[in-house]
């Protein structure tokens, strides 16, 4: 027992390990449970080291892109960096889409890529690719190992950079000769790390916070606009407290869903391109907008020249570059959202001041009026299955508690609009990059780490086929994901744009020769169920969710003509919206 304790003593300088063993040992010391990856020539020493221990478990995917999405989704659900291991060349390039996906949504991830031997770099060696060059614009930082003894430090540095400040993916390129099994080096894993050139802010500026509170207290038409920063910043409790203390209406971005409980009366829905009528109207007419961990993305603001003309904008964000990038912020606060919100709450509680109650009551009356219009209603009497209805039924059967991992397209918007997220970290989707093929591996990453939770993959017949091979990985690791395939036979969002902007000329948006998804699921060893009528849905969902440990592929045939509404009118203000195929604001 004593000797075992000694060998895991992190400060013991006499422990000698090979570069490959150091990679795995550093991950174990960092507390990494799962490593998602795919072996290949340049990383074989590392895989051999992985084989010889049992702390870090490896998940073998069928395509490297899936490894990155699994790690990414784990990070989105847990707040901790996911870790990926791939080989050089094609292994690394296959991971690129996943790295870019994580980068766009500020998700912490550490990607270890193999590289050819140092002396071969630059010589067009077999499976050589300049991964540092390729990944530079799509990751928060990248580094390469030049001396094996630096491996523990570089891995610590990768986690430090990935998980602090504005989180993001970090790539560490490891030439094969850095991992030679026959050479040993003193192993020491640093507890902390400090970089002179990277000191992200924590607390917000006290003066700015005071100014923001004062501005907020003068508001007659306030709105709280919360984004993904609140989720990754773990500040949903503070956000909720602030909103409820001042009775503020709250809207969440696509990335921020769950930051404020959707079931609460102060929640007015998602905002932006497919946001609710009331959220977009409330934003447009607001006199004070308090933006928390949101970045005024073009899918939110619509035309920035017409954006919220009357609003004083308070913007809290960890990234100074996000402030006044697209929309000018009147009161910027740079800092982590949680401490900033805590400071604001402390001042408010001390001041014991509230907003002008008469003005606020009037504002809420107006909002309630907008709420009755809503703009997202769908035809409940139609004979064909409506995707919105399917999402509502999935929400019912999972009590709104599931992790919903979405692909990209119409189904993503329907899920965002109709699944009420009451908790943070439950809505897992590729918001920034819009990566089709994200959904299934994302659901796998969550299910592996939260085996007792309901994990749903909402997808379409287009997206699911981009990473369909992962059904095999699901079988290997017993991942009982429920796949809700909203099958309309079209690339729905493309088709919707073609309907609206190209006189319904469906250039390449129809998929002929779709596979029989039920048989396909069965071929991979799973359960497949086809649903073609509204009556079949309920029993199918009940059966699927009763099969706790099994992957069930629900191929649900929906109305191919359905569009996502509301939809902002291109070039318009926040509140210029199409509300249905025939109505617009």
């Amino acid at each position, binding site marked *: 027992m004593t000797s075992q304790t000694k060998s895991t003593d992190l400060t013991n300088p006499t422990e000698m390990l090979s570069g490959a063993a150091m990679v795995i040992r550093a991950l174990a010391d960092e507390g990494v449970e799962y490593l998602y990856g795919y072996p290949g020539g340049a990383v074989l020493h590392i895989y051999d080291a992985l084989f010889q221990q049992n702390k870090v478990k490896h998940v073998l995917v069928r395509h490297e892109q899936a490894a990155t999405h699994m790690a990414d989704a784990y990070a989105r659900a847990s707040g901790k960096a996911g870790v990926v291991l791939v080989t050089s060349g094609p292994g690394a390039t296959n991971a690129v889409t996943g790295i870019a996906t994580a980068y766009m949504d500020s998700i912490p991830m550490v990607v270890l890529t193999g590289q050819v031997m140092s002396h071969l770099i630059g010589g067009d060696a077999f499976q050589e690719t300049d991964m*540092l060059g390729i990944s530079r614009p799509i990751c928060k930082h990248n580094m390469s190992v030049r001396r094996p003894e630096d491996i523990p430090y570089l891995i610590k540095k990768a986690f430090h950079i990935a998980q602090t400040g504005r989180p993001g993916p970090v790539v560490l390129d490891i030439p094969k000769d850095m991992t030679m099994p026959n050479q040993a080096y003193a192993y020491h894993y640093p507890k902390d790390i400090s970089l002179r*050139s990277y000191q992200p802010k924590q607390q917000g500026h006290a003066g700015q916070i005071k100014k923001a509170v004062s501005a907020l207290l003068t508001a007659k038409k306030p709105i709280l606009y919360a984004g993904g920063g609140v989720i990754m910043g773990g500040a949903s409790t503070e956000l909720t407290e602030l909103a409820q203390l001042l009775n503020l209406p709250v809207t969440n971005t696509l990335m921020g869903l769950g930051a404020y409980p959707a079931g609460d009366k102060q929640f007015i829905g998602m905002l932006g391109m497919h946001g609710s009528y009331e959220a977009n109207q409330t934003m447009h007419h607001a006199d004070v907008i308090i933006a928390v961990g949101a970045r005024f993305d073009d899918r939110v603001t619509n035309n920035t020249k017409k954006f919220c003309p009357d609003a004083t904008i308070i913007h809290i964000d960890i990234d100074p570059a996000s402030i006044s*990038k697209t929309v000018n912020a009147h009161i910027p606060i740079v800092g982590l959202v949680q401490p900033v919100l805590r400071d604001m709450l402390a001042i408010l509680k001390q001041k014991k001041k509230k907003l002008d109650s008469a003005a606020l009551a009037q504002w809420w009356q107006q909002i309630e009026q907008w709420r009755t219009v809503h703009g997202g209603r769908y035809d409940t009497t139609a004979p064909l299955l409506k995707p919105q209805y399917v999402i509502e039924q999935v929400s019912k059967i999972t009590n709104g508690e599931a992790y919903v991992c979405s692909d990209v397209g119409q189904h993503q918007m329907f899920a965002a609009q109709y699944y009420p997220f009451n908790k943070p970290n439950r809505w897992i989707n590729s918001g920034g990059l819009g990566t089709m093929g994200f959904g299934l591996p994302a659901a796998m990453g969550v299910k592996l780490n939260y085996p007792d939770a309901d994990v749903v993959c909402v997808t379409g017949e287009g997206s699911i086929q981009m990473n369909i091979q992962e059904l095999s990985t699901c079988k290997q690791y017993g991942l009982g994901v429920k796949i809700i395939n909203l099958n309309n036979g079209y690339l729905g969002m493309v088709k919707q744009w073609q309907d609206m902007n190209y006189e319904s000329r469906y250039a390449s948006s129809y998929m002929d020769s779709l596979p029989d998804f039920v048989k396909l699921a069965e071929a991979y060893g799973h359960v497949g169920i086809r649903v073609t009528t509204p009556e079949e849905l309920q029993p199918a969902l009940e059966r699927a969710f009763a099969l706790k440990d099994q992957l069930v592929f629900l191929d649900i045939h929906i109305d191919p003509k359905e569009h996502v509404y509301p939809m902002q009118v291109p070039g318009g203000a926040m509140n210029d919206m199409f509300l249905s195929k025939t109505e617009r604001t």
Partner: protein
Amino acid sequence: MRHIISVLLENESGALARLVGLFAQRGYNIDSLNVAPTDDPTLSRLTLVTHGNDQVIEQISKQLHKLIEVVKVSDISEAAHIERELMLVKVKASASQREEVKRCADIFRGQIIDVTPVTYTIQLVGTSDKLDAFIQALGATPILEVVRSGASGIARGEKTLTL
């Protein structure tokens, strides 16, 4: 507007590529770029001349700050500063033109640092504007080659950009 941005950068491989890549990715301009290690060999000092409106310059500065290897950023053109650029110009200078070229170089306080029977190579230091003016002033003299270092800059007075 023209801005001169000074950057202290970790002297590590890939750091410069990341910085230059940022300008290409985000569509910012680089008019000139000058970089070399400082007295502290772990740091490089970089002077970058760019142009853009206030919003663009603010974004450039913030985006530079975000790069992990960037230690400090300063827009030195916002306050009193000194700017110098080195230029080497090789011109055709045969019998009839030799005196004229020499006189012109003297006026601009240039030095002739290499001579052949048919060419002069002139070294000139000054603001970028002054170097432009010298090229104009050479007039009809055939220019064979121009090499410019890009501007280097430093703040006037006691202000410094150091660790």
